């Protein structure tokens, strides 16, 4: 019932497909309060992730996550590249060389990813960034794992919470990232990075690969 490297790869492929399907939506969100590239950046990065996975298939979940991290760092650019890259890098470190991840390991990976984003980007809750999707996701994941949930269930509650967290960025005034230049005018729009975080987690769940 643990989550293997193959499962993680399946989830990531699903994530890439979701990013691609929502590319234009993410561009639109970023167009309104940013610079209209988030969908393009994420799509470029996850296409690279997939094509890397087509040729190099790491054997542990941690190795997969690390390969994703370095691929994202070297292909996405912008703010989201280093932030997502760091998240995957820290998640990789958190899972070490385990061959299978159980519920608590998945929760710990999410926590490490969040910590990485915060360490690099210095955003706090309510700044209207991807952190606002990650914090509730991590909280929900840890609670479920503590209740004994397996990796699929942990991811499912995390995805659900990330979705609500992303939606809840709509009324916020941005204090980090490009949207912060708009001040009050950033309110009324969902943060693109929070949205892409929620999208990725939902896709991981829906892949049923985990």
């Amino acid at each position, binding site marked *: 019932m643990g989550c293997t490297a193959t499962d993680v790869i399946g989830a990531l492929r699903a994530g890439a497909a979701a990013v691609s399907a929502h590319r234009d939506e993410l561009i639109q969100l970023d*167009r309104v*309060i940013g610079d*209209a590239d988030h969908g*393009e950046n994420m799509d470029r990065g996850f296409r690279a992730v997939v094509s890397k996975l087509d040729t190099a298939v790491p054997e542990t979940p941690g190795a997969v996550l690390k390969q994703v991290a370095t691929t994202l760092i070297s*292909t996405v*650019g*912008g*703010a989201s590249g280093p932030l997502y890259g760091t998240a995957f890098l820290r998640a990789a470190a958190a899972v070490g060389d385990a061959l299978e991840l159980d519920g608590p390991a998945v929760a710990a990976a999410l926590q490490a990813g969040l910590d990485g984003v915060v360490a690099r980007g210095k955003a706090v809750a309510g700044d209207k960034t991807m952190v606002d999707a990650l914090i509730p996701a991590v909280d929900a994941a840890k609670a479920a794992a503590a209740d004994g949930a397996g990796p699929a269930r942990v991811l499912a509650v995390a995805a659900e919470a990330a979705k609500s967290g992303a939606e809840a960025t709509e009324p916020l005034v941005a204090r980090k990232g490009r949207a912060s*230049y708009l*001040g009050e005018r950033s309110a009324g729009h969902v943060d693109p990075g929070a949205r892409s975080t929620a999208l990725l987690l939902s896709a991981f769940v829906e892949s049923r690969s985990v």
Partner: protein
Amino acid sequence: MKKIINDPATVVGDALRGMAAAHPELLRVRTDPALIVRADAPVAGKVALISGGGSGHEPLHGGFVGAGMLTAAVPGAVFTSPTPDAVQAAISETESGAGALLVVKNYTGDVLNFETAAELAGLEGADVRAVIVDDDVAVKDSTHTAGRRGVGGTVLVEKIVGAAAERGESLERCEAIARRVVGQVRSMGVALTGPTVPHAGEPSFTLSEDEMEIGIGIHGEPGRRRLPMESADGIVAKLLEPILEDLPFAEGDDVLLFTNSMGATPMIELYGAHGIAERLLAERGVRVRRRLVGPYTTSLDMQGMSLTLLKLDEELTELWDDPVRTAALHW
């Protein structure tokens, strides 16, 4: 969207190939990762001056690669900071033994990617420093924001520090001069139209015939306020006031005035605006000693302009006057 392009995905590479064809004596390019490098780099014994950022602001930065200015430019995708490995490639391709100075515009993505590259290059033994340019007075500088953006002032930093590097100044001196320029330069911009990002396909924002956006950046993000359209006199005053108050610039100051087109505002309008700015500064007793007028820090096809004011001293003036040989600035 109408653009003379083949495919949004190849725009940056296509432009690089065209640049390489157009300026073989000044520069060479690489496309994976994308780099524009001075033809004679590495330049032995001289600090490598490297800048970069999202594409779409041409001639910033690739048009400023050459003797007396940048050693290399690292262009990202349109409006997207380049990745650390691209910056690292620029560092190693220009490695001269005298160290490298990165000129980084203050955006979350640029700062994260360039600083990561500097860190990684440092681990490999290179002496790399980064200077962050944040001259845009339209943004409140506060720990609760991403801080001020780097805009037109970046050109002045690159020219002046490029001259210092060309003179053979040390990395420490170049860094110190860069910080001094950053400390003394302020900018403010206005848009009459939003730019259209190729892969987005529609304008980043839309203004009606009687509106302008004041306090805009160079990435199509909306500005500080949407205001009724005004005459050139009104627009120039609205750009100049917050700049003058910010440093502040005072009577008797010697300055460089940079009147910049955001891309689609033609020279006939830009010179008109420049003349107004010169008049307003003269009325304040601020003495314009050097000028730059043209589309040097653009935002694709956006109509609009920005003003940049740099407080000059003798050394900065001399460095500004030093020869420069690049595609976009040449004297």
